[in-house]
């Protein structure tokens, strides 16, 4: 039965948001391609949740620590059973690690980091950023299965009203050649830019590293992640994980607040597909204002603390 298979990542007993987004677009593709939406995860307790997103079946692989080899074998077995036309991954670290590996094993094509997907003329059609978002390519994946990784936040996560779904175990051999030794915990309370709905980003206008506290305070108050321009990362003010743009991350949050970022072409490429953009900069000619929906020509050291206070007040109500 051809259809769509979605790899689901589970955290704290729930399907991660990026995977729920992949399930939602997967369900739509299954409707147009014909066939069922099915899913694969490492935790059978998410069967009911997968069902709510329209999955008719959940393949369960008995894997605790992430393993490229283990999941590739489990996915291959699920593909042999379900014979999907499309195989989807959320474009997370693990999705980006697995999609090419299973693609090569199945001799299948992969479209990475896509923000639009459709089933057109019997093939998977995908739109994806190239040159770090300076251009968009529309590609057709002609293999069976056709594989794609979905960009977090590009597709809405929508429940379909289904219920409990059938569970089927797939075997997952332990990875003989690589093993996880240790996971180092994240800095407490820090969200990551890749999946965040709101990003507050700082640039050279902060003048020095400790002033990232202005960015962190607002990010913390509003419930967003801390982003950064390349200049601040190269200056050692903040870790590279926060960098937005070419040689950082291409992001599409609902709200992007840029403070003290002039807007180099590499930075604009990485954030201009954000849905709502607010820029705060002293220079009225800064290129960031060309992509901003709301631009404030002013001093970030005054505007940011005032905004942080307003947000705290708004949240308290």
């Amino acid at each position, binding site marked *: 039965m051809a259809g769509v298979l979605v790899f689901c990542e589970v955290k704290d007993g729930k399907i991660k948001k990026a995977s729920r987004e992949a399930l939602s677009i997967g369900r739509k593709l299954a409707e147009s391609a014909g066939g069922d939406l099915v899913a694969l995860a490492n935790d059978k307790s998410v069967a009911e949740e997968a069902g709510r997103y329209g999955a008719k079946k959940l393949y369960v692989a008995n894997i605790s620590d992430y393993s490229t080899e283990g999941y590739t074998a489990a996915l291959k077995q699920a593909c042999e059973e379900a014979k999907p036309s499309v195989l989807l991954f959320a474009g997370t670290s693990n999705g980006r690690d697995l*999609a090419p590996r299973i693609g090569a094993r199945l001799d299948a*094509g*992969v479209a990475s980091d896509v923000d639009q997907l459709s089933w057109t003329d019997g093939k998977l059609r995908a739109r994806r950023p190239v040159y770090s978002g300076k251009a968009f390519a529309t590609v057709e994946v002609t293999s069976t299965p056709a594989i794609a990784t979905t960009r977090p936040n590009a597709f809405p996560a929508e429940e379909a009203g289904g219920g409990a779904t059938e569970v089927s175990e797939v075997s997952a051999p332990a990875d003989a050649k690589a093993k996880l030794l240790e996971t*180092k915990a994240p800095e407490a309370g820090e969200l990551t830019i890749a999946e965040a709905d709101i990003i507050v980003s700082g640039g050279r206008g902060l003048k020095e590293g400790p002033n990232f506290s202005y960015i962190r305070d607002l990010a913390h108050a509003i419930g967003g992640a801390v982003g950064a321009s390349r200049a601040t990362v190269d200056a050692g003010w903040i870790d590279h994980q926060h960098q937005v743009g070419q040689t950082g991350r291409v992001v599409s949050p609902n709200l992007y607040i840029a403070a003290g970022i002039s807007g180099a072409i590499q930075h604009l490429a990485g954030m*201009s597909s954000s849905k709502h953009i607010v820029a705060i900069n002293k220079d009225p000619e800064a290129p960031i204002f060309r992509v901003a929906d709301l631009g404030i020509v002013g001093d970030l050291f005054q505007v940011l603390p005032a905004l942080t206070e307003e947000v705290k007040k708004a949240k308290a109500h």
Partner: protein
Amino acid sequence: MNSVVCISHVPDTESRIKVGADGRRIDETGLKFIVSPYDEYALEEAIRQKEKSGGDVTVLTFGPERASQALRECLARGATKALHVKGESGDADALGIAKVLAAAIKTVPHDVVFFGKQGVGTDNGLVGPMVAEVLGYPQVNVVTHLEVGDGKLTATREIEGAEEVIEAQLPAVITAQKGLNEPRYASLKGIMAAKKIAIDTKSVADLGLSDSDIFNQRVVFVSVELPPEKSGGRKIDGSDPAAAAQEILKYIREEAKAL
């Protein structure tokens, strides 16, 4: 320890991109090409391993004539050998490219195969893991720290908001993330020495591969478009910070619906 570093030759990150006449590719006219930035971290790491424990660093690329420049640049920084598989890699998809590179890697002694985590061009981030699969090697993606020794490597991999430490048997594939090291510039001495090293060349056919498999078109470009020009939105004076903050809050609530 011997390394292979796979290099992609991409438009300079400062470039403005134009769509080509066929509407399916970019116009390469006038573009300056560089070694893809993530590949620089890969190369630097391989050179450091060589400086520690000897061996060769072979830089490898699959691409048109112009890609030789990238290899020359890598030799100037300290790579010891170079192999250029000539061909229109732009007509192959990621798996086609991976099959060519995997076949070429087999002709060169190696313990670790290095890639950048993605080429800053088509931004697929696919070729490294695909090569690992074709060769049957373990892979560690998006690596920020690496130790090699004793038939295995230990690599730190960046994941969402955390890091994983992974041990893998050699030979293995590593994809480099920014932060792995601080790449060096080519020295004048290096540039002169590099001129004496011949770049080995091969064709796809020399590697025993058929064009029909490499240029198989599992992924086909339909069109390339530039993002719509944003006209820029409202711009307001922020000399009264409290008023500006209230304006932003209103926008966040009413238009972004984020609070």
